[in-house]
């Protein structure tokens, strides 16, 4: 298991999905290339070091890594490869595009409660209305308002038959 082999490394909440992991992998490869060029070239020649992204910065800071050290780069590379290969992926659909803050909060909860390296892909489905739909490896979880109404169908029918409203109940 990846999180067993790389227990010390963690994914920041901003690295939410496989796309972000792939981006980190590509960025790390670029840094590796630059480092290799620095090693091979003679002194005095200028080598342009690539600028790290916010995702990479957060990953480095969270895991206290120094990418100038080959061991750290290798460790991170192995970690990212393991994450890419073995981390569970959840697909969650919302009615609107979620904000970064929302995703951060959701990822924090997922990494804490479900799996420390869980990845998330976000879908857009306007018909949901409220709530979300979660699709795992083989299961499908409907947390939408429509499903909630379906669950409360008998109660709705009972209320409709009695002609009651919540407001009326509140008054009574």
């Amino acid at each position: 298991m990846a999180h067993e082999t790389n227990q010390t490394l963690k994914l920041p909440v901003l690295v939410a999905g496989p796309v972000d992991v792939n981006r980190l992998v590509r960025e790390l490869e670029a840094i590796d290339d630059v480092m290799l060029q620095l090693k091979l070239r003679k002194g005095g020649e200028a080598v342009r070091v690539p600028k790290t992204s916010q995702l990479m910065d957060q990953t480095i800071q969270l895991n206290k890594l120094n990418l100038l050290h080959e061991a750290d780069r290798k460790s991170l590379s192995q970690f990212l490869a393991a994450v890419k290969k073995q981390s569970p992926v959840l697909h969650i659909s919302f009615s609107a595009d979620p904000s970064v803050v929302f995703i951060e909060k959701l990822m924090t909860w997922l990494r804490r409660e479900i799996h420390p390296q869980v990845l998330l892909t976000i879908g857009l489905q306007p018909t949901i209305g409220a709530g979300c739909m979660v699709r795992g490896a083989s299961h499908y979880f409907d947390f939408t308002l429509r499903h909630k109404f379906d669950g409360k169908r008998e109660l709705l029918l009972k209320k409709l038959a009695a002609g009651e409203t919540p407001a009326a109940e509140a008054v009574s």
Partner: protein
Amino acid sequence: MTIWWLALILATLGASGLAFIWLAVRVGRTPAGVVAGKPQPGSIAAAAREDVESIFNNEFREELRNRGRLHFEKIIGENAMFLQQDLRLTTSQLNEFMKTEITRKLKEEFAKYEQSITDAKQLAIDSIQKTNLAIDEQRHELSDQVRKEILAEKQQLLKHFESNMADIINHYVLAAIGNQIDLNDQLDYILGELETNKKAIIEDILSGA
């Protein structure tokens, strides 16, 4: 009856006229034995003839003629008067009869006409009543049919509504306050649902992985 009376009166008048004509002819005719041969002078017949001629001379004959004429005229006048009275009586009776008959006939015809009108009226009333009954029956049938169809439609709509109630309410909520539902406001609800199904999600992830 009156026709017979009229015929009898006319027959009486005709018989009276014939009698007067016969009398006039009879008076004007000479005896057959006397005219045939001339009597012998000095005979009884001649003497009788002379006496007769002396008695029934021209003046006397003229007197007799005048008297006969007057008597005839008197009889004619009386009969004319009687005839006139009979005619007046007959005319009045005829008028009365005709009036009575016409009145009776008219009454009968009017009665028949009235009866016909009454029958036609009754027939029309019966027909209208039958039509009204038929219309009422059809109206009831149509009303029942419409009621049944409305009930069936209502049941179908209710069934449709009940089967798609969640979708309908969801659609209504979306249409009513869809733009006011912020995803950030739903975070607690979503996390609550995830928390409720955490175990199942973990099992799914682990089994999938």
